[in-house]
């Protein structure tokens, strides 16, 4: 047992050396955990923020001007006032996701109680933005109209004071979310590709054959790869969280960092093992590339780190529950954003551990069957 651990450690040192010997790999890892995180965190907005809207004002009244000027930062950029003929081109080109059309005599009809219609055109292809943005504009228009009319005839207040408070991220700032999730997504990409390709490389170069005649078991070879690549990636991602996300982007992380590290290690074991498992299904690097790509993309987009799990049909949620990413994303969100303790996330951790062991076991069976066999 002790000597087995010792051999795993020695093999891991070899893996570290292989990793460090490739400056391109290190360069990409650096990019992924620094520049890419900043790019995605600052560049990507799922919430309505600084959306570009346009107004077609055919009324030119005080009310229409009030509506126009009420589309304000941070939700909207100052609205462009455009002619009716520009609506189509503006929306076709994707320049405007929202165009509000205020018809002639809008103000006077409203004052006269004729219930005029105002139209909000929404580019429905801008999925994340369209639905929520439309509701915001609707709200703004109604509020402005109501306050304008109230001033005109002195109406009373709303019957209910509805207070919606967002916990954990009061301003629903998406940078908080995307920054950390980008780190997690990149961890998954790196783990699968690094460990998987490390195994394929050993196979293509014949070194695996050499290992198998030495007093080293396949399990030890696997664990060494998992340990070495996992350790590098965990360390890099923690650094990224601390330096890039926390200090660089100034994003508060409320939860327990040690707890998060423990969870990350569990996660790392299962994704690196997944990389190895995929590698046992491929014989060459080009095959591995093509096989791992769809897997990575599915983990990236459907684990709840990009779009909410609640948007997926239940069969897909069921399938995704077997992937480590789904549980780690849930774990990370609970720990990092909501400050959850072990008592609240032990279930996710347990599931992660079970998935990790299951993938490892499967991998070991495949390994024995395929790696030592002749091509």
């Amino acid at each position: 047992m002790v000597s087995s651990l010792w051999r795993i450690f020695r093999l891991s040192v070899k893996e570290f050396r292989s990793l460090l010997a490739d400056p391109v790999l290190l360069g990409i890892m650096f990019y992924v955990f620094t520049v890419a995180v900043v790019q995605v965190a600052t560049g990507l907005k799922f919430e309505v923020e600084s959306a570009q809207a346009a107004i077609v004002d055919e009324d030119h009244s005080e009310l229409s001007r009030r509506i126009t000027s009420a589309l304000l930062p941070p939700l909207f950029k100052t609205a462009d006032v455009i002619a009716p003929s520009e609506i189509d081109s503006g929306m076709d080109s994707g320049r405007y996701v929202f165009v509000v059309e205020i018809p002639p005599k809008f103000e006077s009809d409203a004052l006269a109680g004729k219930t005029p219609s105002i139209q909000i055109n929404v580019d429905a292809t801008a999925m994340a933005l369209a639905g929520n943005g439309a509701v915001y504009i609707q709200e703004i228009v109604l509020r402005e109209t109501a306050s304008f009319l109230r001033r005109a005839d002195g109406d009373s207040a709303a019957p209910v004071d509805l207070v919606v408070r967002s916990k954990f991220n009061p301003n629903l700032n998406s940078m908080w979310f995307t920054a950390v999730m980008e780190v997690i997504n990149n961890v998954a990409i790196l783990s699968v590709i690094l460990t998987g390709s490390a195994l394929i490389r050993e196979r293509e170069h014949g070194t695996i054959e050499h290992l198998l005649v030495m007093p080293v078991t396949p399990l030890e070879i696997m664990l060494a790869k998992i340990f070495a690549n996992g350790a590098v990636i965990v360390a890099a991602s923690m650094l990224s969280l601390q330096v890039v996300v926390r200090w660089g982007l100034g994003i508060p992380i409320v939860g327990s960092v040690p707890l998060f590290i423990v969870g990350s290690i569990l996660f790392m074991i299962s994704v690196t093992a997944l990389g190895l498992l995929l590698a046992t299904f491929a014989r060459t690097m080009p095959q591995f590339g093509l096989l791992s790509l769809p897997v990575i993309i599915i983990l990236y987009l459907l684990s709840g780190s990009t779009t909410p799990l609640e948007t997926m049909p239940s069969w897909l949620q069921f399938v995704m529950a077997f992937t480590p990413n789904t549980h780690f994303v849930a774990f990370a969100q609970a720990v990092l954003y909501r400050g959850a303790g072990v008592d609240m996330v032990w279930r996710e951790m347990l599931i992660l551990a079970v998935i990790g062991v299951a993938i490892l076991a499967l991998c070991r069976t495949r390994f024995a069957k395929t790696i030592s066999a002749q091509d």
Partner: protein
Amino acid sequence: MSDVAALANVTQLYGTTRALDDVTIALPEGKMIGLIGPDGVGKSTLLALVAGVRRIQSGGVTALGGDMADSGHRAACAARIAYMPQGLGRNLYPTLSVFENLDFFGRLFGQGAAEREARIKELLASTGLDPFPDRPAGQLSGGMKQKLSLCCALIHDPDLLILDEPTTGVDPLSRRQFWDLIDRIRARRPGMSVAVATAYMEEAERFDWLAALDGGKIIGSGAPADLRALTREKSLDAAFIALLPPEARADHSAVVLPPLVEGEGYAIEAENLTCRFGKFTAVDHVNFRIRRGEIFGFLGSNGCGKSTTMKMLTGLLAPTEGEALLFGQRLDAGDMATRRRVGYMSQGFSLYSELTVRQNLVLHAQLFELPEPGATARVKEMLARFDLDGVADQKPESLPLGIRQRLQLAVAVLHKPEVLILDEPTSGVDPIARDSFWRLLIALSREDGVTIFISTHFMNEAERCDRISLMHAGKVLAVDAPAALVAARGKADLEQTFISYLEGAGEGAEPAEAVGFSAPRAAASAVRRFDPARLWAYARREAMEILRDRLRLIFAFVGPLTLLLTFGYGISFDVENLAYAVNDQDNSLESRELLENFAGSRYFSQKSDVTSASEIDRRLSTGELKLVVEIPAGFGRDLVAGKGPRVAVWIDGAMPFRGETIRSYITGISQTWLAEQHRRRGLTVAASPINVETRFRYNQAFKSIYSIIPGVIMLILMLVPSMLTALGVVREKEVGSIANFRSTPVTRVEFLLGKQAPYIVLSFVSFGILMATALLLFGLPVRGSALALVLGAAFYIYATTSLGILFSAFLRTQVAALFATAVVSIIPAVNFSGLLVSVASLSTGGRLVGLAFPCGWFQEISIGAFTKGMDFMHLAPNLLVLLAFGLFYQLCAVLALRKQEA
């Protein structure tokens, strides 16, 4: 006498190693020129410089009457030089058949179909390969591979044939046939010059002119007889050693084999050992017993089953039938104790090329758990014993074959095993190093009682074995002491004996004397700067390779389809079934009415009530609940009294998009509820003074698939085509077939485009499948210009395959290329191209990233043509941009790829 090539003051440095040190030499024309010398003295470098495949660092090289530093001259004479690199069939394509390999080379040299056909027929007939034109090159034996390699080199009738250790690792019979073939070819084409690097001195004897190298310097040159006369030695071997500086030959003496003191019992026993791969029987009921301490030699032609037998004895392969015994015990592959007793060296290089020589040794010492401080001393001892001190901190990939073999040997004996199984350990090793290695083996056997099981192609090595076994076609023909075998056949020496055994087994009938090449040389095409035929040769070959790689083909089609189906059904922005709970402290009619609106909504799904503020925190923290509605006591009363009571809703904001969506749902619910309240309380005033009509353009039903499917097609066509091409060039670099690009007239553009073209076609077919799925299965109409969509996809695929080619051209390892392509394509395609988040709401930085890659531009075409109903003219600018991306990437790739090795 004129010279075919000459070097003047050439110095080549690799790191700090001087491969060539101020070399000046002229190679005579029309001769058979041999370069002899130990490993790593610069033979390969010299040949590579003459062939024009390596860049000249300093000094001047001329060949065929021109300066090899001049790319114009190199291009002009590429068709007159043939270069066969070191290594068994390294420039062949393993999945292509014998005929197809030759056909490919013929096309590279611009030969027409009839000419190729005729030449291939002649070459195959004269090399004895004619019975197997359809056998994949990867399944040929080592000797046949070398013959095929030679055929490939000869297909264009070169004036200068350069062979780098062509017979290393080739069995004696094949070797003899190989040189006979060369002689016949030279007889037909007397003007042809042949330059050969070799470690076999007996081969060098038959050459016209020799240059002996040592330490990057020429230490002697002239005809073999002249060299012998100069040094007053009888054999070339001895002459070479006499030419060496005194310190290098100091320890050289003849190898002596003391008699064997037979040990107790058997170390290795094979009983009816059989191994089948499918229908092919590689090893057929093999029996032998090897005594402890014996040196047991294994001889046989290439591909006769020697390596397979050895693998079964190490446990790497499970026998199909029969059994292997090690020290009387049945071999258990999983038994660690057995592995410690065995040292194994495989035929190919199987150590870590990313670790230094010393690190490789240390790693093995550690894995075998050699105790300290002995381990460090042992590593030192091995470095000294195998003469690796000088290269201890270099990486094996930069070392010549012979030195790498020595390292492998050092690793195999490092842990002092009781049994050594060595598969052609001295292949490619120079005579001096071989002798010192044998002294070591003999010492191990005679002094330490180590049993040695060794396969070899060298007869002088076989003679040093206690017993040898001759193997052919999976069967053992004879087992006995070498002298006894020679006596039994009544031949002069072991080589004759061996050949007679093989010929007795029906192998090696001399091929019929080939007729002279009749077809005239097609020289015209060689100087053309761009030749579509060469491009086609590469495209055709690449296409054949992918068509034969079933698994890759399946992944290439199934992967995209899986993604489209998964995301088509999986991604949407309709957030539903959000888990919520209520804390209704009022429990009045009014509060229940309000809550019914939540309960009745498909967006929400109710969980058990919360009762305290701390419970709200806890259940939101675990992620169990996404929102909590809290209604204070007295809500109903205050509402009726018009006091505007406060309702609090707590949202889990951890995922902002979800949080925002919940907020907008709540806004909707509260408006409905308010309207209801107004109606119920009989208020005649309309709930709202105006009507807000929200019109979802392009997608009235606001169904996710209308924007997701075009986006997913964008995503797939970014990732998969670039991944398909990303490994193309870099793989050739790793495998070695890049040598063909370097040594033939093919240009960078032809090579890259040829490698890219099949994947453009493949990806376009894949696009067709995705389109059919989108139209038929998802029922998505193309509302806009279908022409723009199809053209756009073509240009986009061109751009993304070019991106992959670009990575492949400038990176050095497959791992790096795979990694770079995945990261660089995934990040912009997923985030900054409008797949999930509209480009309009990206920050300036994000927008710029999106614009810097083709994916964002195609997304506009995809969405525009599918959903927005845009016409061709509106999408035309994007088409041009995509085309520009493709051209730009391709240009960069051409610039990044070097025709010569550094």
